[in-house]
């Protein structure tokens, strides 16, 4: 979590936040009204090919960039409201969890930051993280909108999870296409841009990663299908698990 704060000292990381936010927002706005799923709340988000790719390339800048980009998408899309607060947090997690869990979700992860795109185990991890980060985003946003009384939790958590997972999976193709350019030509991969002392080491990364896994999957499956009558309570508990887990990484 340390890098999420210390990155604001680094000019390139600040610019990367702005660039990630602008790309995400531009894509969100372009497809905002194309295929609405819950009008004013969510739609088929073609733009969701970006956050996970940003995350694995730009690390903490992607977390802030996804959050700010979603907020700008709400503003320009005309859906800015109280729901945008947890839209910000949910999309922050969508950009934060993939890079944070890439090294901490042991034993599935091998602990190395470098993406071994030719190794099938990296793609298994990619698929798992796509699902977990999408479910975490869905749980947090759906819990808040249920609290506000805007959209029922069981409906929204499933829509966001599936929507974001598909976006992130398709984003894998984008990652394949741009990884070499960003890593070797532009030299903008996040752990090269940031100073090692600013990145730090997670306090209890493995524990945090598994708390997020439990929170995200329990929040989605229990809240939407098994105990949907207690959806709000499940949403609140699992949101706390996800946030605590994220903080520990």
């Amino acid at each position, binding site marked *: 979590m340390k890098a999420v704060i210390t990155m604001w000292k680094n000019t390139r990381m600040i610019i990367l936040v702005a660039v990630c936010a602008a790309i995400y*927002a531009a894509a969100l706005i372009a497809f905002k009204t194309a295929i609405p799923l819950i009008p004013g709340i969510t739609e088929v988000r073609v733009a969701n090919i970006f956050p996970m790719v940003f995350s694995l390339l730009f690390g903490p800048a992607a977390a802030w960039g996804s959050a700010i980009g979603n907020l700008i998408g709400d503003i320009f899309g005309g859906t800015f409201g109280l729901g945008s607060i947890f839209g910000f947090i949910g999309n922050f997690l969508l950009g934060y969890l993939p890079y944070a869990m890439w090294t901490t979700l042991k034993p599935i992860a091998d602990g190395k930051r470098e993406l071994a795109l030719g190794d099938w185990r990296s793609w298994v991890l990619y698929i798992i993280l796509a699902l977990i980060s999408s479910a975490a985003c869905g749980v947090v946003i759906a819990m808040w909108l249920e609290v506000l009384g805007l959209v029922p939790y069981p409906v929204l958590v499933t829509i966001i999870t599936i929507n974001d997972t598909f976006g992130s999976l398709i984003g894998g193709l*984008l990652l394949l296409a741009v990884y070499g350019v960003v890593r070797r030509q532009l030299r903008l991969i996040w752990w090269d841009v940031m100073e090692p002392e600013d990145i730090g080491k997670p306090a209890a990364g493995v524990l945090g990663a598994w708390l997020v896994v439990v929170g995200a999957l329990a929040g989605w499956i229990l809240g939407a299908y098994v105990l949907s009558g207690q959806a709000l309570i499940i949403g609140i508990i699992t949101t706390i698990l996800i946030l605590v887990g994220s903080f520990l990484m």
Partner: protein
Amino acid sequence: MNIFLYLDENTWFHRLDPRTKVIGVLLLFGIVMVFNHPLYMAAVALGLVLLGAAAKALPNFWRMRYILALLVVFSTVLWPFFAKGPTPLWSWGRLEVSRESLMYAVAMGLRLASFVAAGLIFLSTTTNEEFTHGLIRLGLPYPVAFAFSTALRLVPTFAGAGATIVQAQISRGLDVESGNIFQRAGKFIPLGVPLFIYAVRHTNMLAMALESKGFNPGEPRTWYLNPQMRRADYIALAVLTVLFLAALFLRLQGYGQVLPRL
């Protein structure tokens, strides 16, 4: 197409300090949250329309008319199946609709539309620069505000670049008109690669340009734009605070609710 919602008018709302507008829109959100009875929510929604008229923001309401209408319709259709009430109207298996859940659904539709309306009034009367400046004056760290305002500035640039890339591919034979809506959306995904590269290439140049001008995210700054809180700002905040507290008081007395939930 202009993607910005700001309308260049000279109303009292436009002249308010950005801090007043940020806090004011949060108070409006608070008022919108208080009631869940459709009649009370209709009164709140009507109040927002009148406020929108005073702020000359109605052209943006018209621009968003389909979204606003869909919000009410969708919520009204969806909520009756999830909120439970004591007076059943219809049931089929586990699905049940009650009189209270139906009224709650209409109220939630109006609440959702009211949120959007409050946001539209704010965005119609506040420039991006004022918005960013208001956030900084309210305590948002400068680097975060800088990233936010830079992103706002870059969105039209990247949207324009995206449109150019699409046009270039169409001129080479890409067919984006045929197929169903999912197939058409899928055709845009490969176009994300050149847009991504185009955008990320900007990063190094922009960072060098900023550093060559002495940009330091941690240093204190001075401002060209320096709006001040005036009497009108304090009056506006006081009125909104009183309205919010009055609404809260009414709700705590049991008015304006069809179901005992938010």
